[in-house]
């Protein structure tokens, strides 16, 4: 019997007030293509998102390659091997180039690949260096589908691929390429769970599942996909990706830096530092801009709210891309600048404290923001109501710094 790549055991998942799936079991082995084709609202996307460890489970557990990835007790482990994922919404960042995004997908598998042949088969070769935000809806969907297939395309070992309505918005050529790729990759031993009503994709299925009953479809093996991946170990993918986002968008400077500069400008508009003797007050002026910049939140999280990009990342890594290095660097620079403007010159100790303040503040705001991601409308809640909790610790640090 072929190795079980995916096991869903007695799954029960809620959405809103209702139970969407209950007592659901599924075993997916190498060379399986399971197409979920239940009617709208039957729970197809819920199954895919549960497989990708995005849904909290009421009951049951999900295993990838025999290892637990998520269960109803709240355990949420990284999958032992990378997997492919295309969500219903693309999960792409508009400021990324097509090539950078696909290279990042490869990097998550510790691989690199020549992407040109794959891009050509989807008619995207000429868009390789374009930003995803410049593409049409259909082209962006092609990128998302290709990103879902890539972990299998670059691997010699069997991989899992989850595709949610991959045909939505694809033209005939891209749909044909997708069907061909599914067949070739299946023959190479990879396994698919696909939510779709498309007749051509349903033809690829070895098993058709309407979430209640399953129908087997006979399938014969044909030619198989030959892996195009070259091993390349690259650590810190999340960190590097976060900083690439920041370099390409300047979001860190536009959001956090500008907030801090406005704080400095506002202070200087009313205050002449030369007339103030109170050390605590002056230190407060120096440390206020890094604090204000931190309260603006993590610019990478802000960017990743686009198109459920944050969910795509949450499925693959435990540590999301973030502005890890930007925060202390910017904090240091702002406090140093504050030293020049409000004190006699740069105070190095205070600059280090500024770096710490910005980093800690940004991390706390980021934690609060990420805590609301499960909500149906995360942008509709007023996160900033909770950030004043950080003012008292900041005030205590200022007093401590002044007493040093």
């Amino acid at each position: 019997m072929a190795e079980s790549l995916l096991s869903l055991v007695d799954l029960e998942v809620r959405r809103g007030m209702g139970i969407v799936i209950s007592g659901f079991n599924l075993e997916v082995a190498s060379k399986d293509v399971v197409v979920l084709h239940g009617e709208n609202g039957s729970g197809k996307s819920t199954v895919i998102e549960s497989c990708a460890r995005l849904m909290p489970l009421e009951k049951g557990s999900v295993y990838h390659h025999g290892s637990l990835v998520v269960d109803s007790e709240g355990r949420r482990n990284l999958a032992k091997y990378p997997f492919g994922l295309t969500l219903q919404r693309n999960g792409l960042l508009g400021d990324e180039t097509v090539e950078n995004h696909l290279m990042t997908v490869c990097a998550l598998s510790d691989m690199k690949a020549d992407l040109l042949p794959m891009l050509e088969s989807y008619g995207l070769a000429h868009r390789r260096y374009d930003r995803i935000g410049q593409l049409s809806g259909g082209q962006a969907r092609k990128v998302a589908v290709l990103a879902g297939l890539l972990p299998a395309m670059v691997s010699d070992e069997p991989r899992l691929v989850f595709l949610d309505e991959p045909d939505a918005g694809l033209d005939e050529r891209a749909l044909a390429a997708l069907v061909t790729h599914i067949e070739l990759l299946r023959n190479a031993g990879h396994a698919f769970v696909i939510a779709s009503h498309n007749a051509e994709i349903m033809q690829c299925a070895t098993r058709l599942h309407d979430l209640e009953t399953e129908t087997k479809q006979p399938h014969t093996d044909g030619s198989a996909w030959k892996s195009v991946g070259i091993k390349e170990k690259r650590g810190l993918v999340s960190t590097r990706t976060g900083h690439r986002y920041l370099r390409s968008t300047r979001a860190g400077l536009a959001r956090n830096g500008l907030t801090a500069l406005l704080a400095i400008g506002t202070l200087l508009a009313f205050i002449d530092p030369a007339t103030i003797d109170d050390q605590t007050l002056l230190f407060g002026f120096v440390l206020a801009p890094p604090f204000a910049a931190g309260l603006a939140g993590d610019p990478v999280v802000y960017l990743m709210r686009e198109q459920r990009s944050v969910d795509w990342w949450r499925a693959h890594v435990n540590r999301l891309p973030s502005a890890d290095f930007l925060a202390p660097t910017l904090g240091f620079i702002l406090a140093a600048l504050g030293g020049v403007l409000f004190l006699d010159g740069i105070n190095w100790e205070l600059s280090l404290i500024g770096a710490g303040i910005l980093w800690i503040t940004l991390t706390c705001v980021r934690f609060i923001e990420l805590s609301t991601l499960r909500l149906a409308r995360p942008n509709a809640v007023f996160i900033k109501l909770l950030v004043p909790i950080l003012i008292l610790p900041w005030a205590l640090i200022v007093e401590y710094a002044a007493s040093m």
Partner: protein
Amino acid sequence: MRTMRGRSPEVLLFAGFVGIASTLYLAFNWAPSVSINAFESPAAQRIFYWHVPAAWAALIAFTVLFIGSAMWFFKRNAMGWKLHVAGSEAGLACGLMVVLSGCIWGAAEWGTPWDWSDVRLNSFGLLTLLAIFLVLGRRSQPDGVETRDTFAAFGLYGFILVPLTYISTRIWQIRHPGPVGGIGAEGSINGSMRFVVLLGALSFTLFIAGHMLVSMRITDMEQRLERAQKRLDGGN
């Protein structure tokens, strides 16, 4: 037609309101003046008769909020969610009263309505902000386990602020005074002052109990309405 028993939350609410109004009347016209030397603004000190009982009621509401949050978060208990909603709404009402009355008093007595270095002031302000966040946030979302889990988790985060508020004046006496008139404590207020404060505490307790019962009934009716409307939509 509702019975008198069915209207008991409203009766409690109105009894509490009348009690609060009476407390304020007594505080204004009957309670003795404090020594002119003890306070910068002896007249504004009378806000104390509003401020302290409101803080007591707010702490009851926030405790209910946290118990409800825990019941929902750990047990998915439907009553727990109703307590969470009732606690956050009542906590918002009383929290605003405490913070506003504190600002009015602070402006007269300290010369500043707010001091970022006073721990009790800030932790109470934060509890009130948490209540605003919960009430507004909940109204912005469709009801469901995602919404309930998330806001119950925020309710639990806030839990650390309640004991912090309680102990803060015992540890950091920056602006706020230490305990006044506590059981077994050497109270700093005399008999008639204590009577007005206790009347205020009783009135606010009635008010907050009525408020929470009305809120729980509203939540219950909203859920029934949602179910009924889903049936009208033809859904499940």
